[in-house]
């Protein structure tokens, strides 16, 4: 699972798993944390936990707290996989 498309596909699935009531139109790669309805600190923790489990990687505390969008999450995952 190394191509950008595959990674992005998994990230989207993770977002829809964590934000269960979100519909397709409410998701975008650039959308910021503050613009999500329920992206609070617990949702952040769950996103990071699920990504770590799915990609078998481990984020540092700084990385885990600084991610504010799906795009930033994608970049961070890519940096761990390369």
């Amino acid at each position, binding site marked *: 699972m190394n191509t950008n498309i595959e990674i992005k596909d998994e990230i989207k699935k993770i977002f829809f*798993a*964590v934000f*269960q009531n979100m519909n397709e139109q409410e998701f975008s790669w650039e959308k910021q944390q503050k613009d999500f309805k*329920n992206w*609070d*600190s*617990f*949702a952040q*923790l*769950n996103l990071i*936990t*699920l990504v770590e*489990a*799915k990609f078998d990687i481990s984020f540092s*505390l700084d990385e885990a*707290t600084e991610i504010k969008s799906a795009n930033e999450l994608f970049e961070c995952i890519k940096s761990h996989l390369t």
Partner: protein
Amino acid sequence: MNIINYLENNSKKYPEKNAIIFENEKISYKQLYNRVQNFSITISELNKEVISLISENSISFIISYLGIIKSGHIVHIVPPEISETNLDNQIKSANSELIICSENVFNNISKYSKIKTQILKFSEIKSPSKIDKISLKENPIAHLIFTSGTTSIPKGVGISHTMLEFTTKNIVNVLGHTSSDIDILPLPLYHSFGLGCVYTSITVGSTIILHKDASNLQNLLNSIKKFKATTFAAIPATLTKFIKFENSDLKNNFSNIRLIITNSTSIPKNTIQTFREILVNGNLATYYGLTEASRSTFMIFQEDSSRDNSVGRPAPGVSIKIDDNSNNEILIKGKNVISKYWKNENADKNIIDEWLRTGDTGFLDNENYLFLKVRKDDIINIGGEKVIPMEVEEIVKQIPEVIDVAAFGIENEIFGQVIKLHVIKSKESNLDKSKILIHCIKNLEKFKIPNKIEFVEKIPKTSYGKVKRFMLK
């Protein structure tokens, strides 16, 4: 009256009746009393105050236990699998001057270099050369058990004859035990659940069908059928294993059973429901208690399943209250409660005005049914949100590939604590961590989602099946 008085009475009332059947051995009430009498005379010559008893289940265990009591000594009951360090600590704290044990245990502990106490095997306790009427002293304490339970520091708990008689009478009256009962007992006798069953049987004069353990389910079923057993004592995990058998087979085997007694470790709903169906002529019952406050509640599961999560109402003569100022801690008062710990002033602070602070939390409903939540120390605090580990465990157990799971709190820089899971998955299963997390996200609030998951081979538990979370943190 203490247990010896009941035994003596029943040896006169039912001299030839089987008191205990164990594998190929059986012993009548008259024989049991005589052997206890002989044992006590031999022991009394040794002039020791506390005697440690270490053995697997056997008739010799019961004779030795009763013999030590009859001689006026205190029985220090020790689990056979105890480590050298723990045994050494217990022996020192109990001030025990003699160890009596089975052959198997002797082979282990005789190698322990730290243990300097005299050790005698059962076979080395000889009958007295002459049986004189000797005046044996009485000791208010019957036995001493060191309980770590689900907390980390073992505490000595001295159980008096008064407490035991009070508790046994409650068991007999609430659960309807009589001399007609045939009691299947596969529980370890070195724990208060198993030992309490022995007290009950000897008090009413019923027959104990003793098993070494509960590992062989088919053996237990054969025994239930062969002896036309009327009662069966087992921990919830044993009962849950039974539900894999065909219902019709179980119904057939359990047709004569009037009572299955289990203990307060959370019983899966499915297990309760299955046994409700299987026990055509009987009931499933549970209780809540600690070594320090044995059988404080009783619960008989009836048709109405709305209180299946409850451990029942306080036993007769026992009071229970909830301390709202201490995370809803359960407090117990009654003649089943110790007045103090064994030489442990620090632990004595848990007993205030005869109320024992249990460390467990829960609530009472409007009809005084007690519902357990969790040990105070086990509540996971995630950024101020309190999580009860069992709630997470129950959800994870819904995943078919999960055999067992333990949830506990681990330190986290941001939230203070987060949840970690230890999961035992079935062999050859492809279960991965993300599947567990997604199942949790679908079924739990977001602050209850585990942050770390580790697949393990074993989860440390007490003999009663309670998770020893302190060993995981």
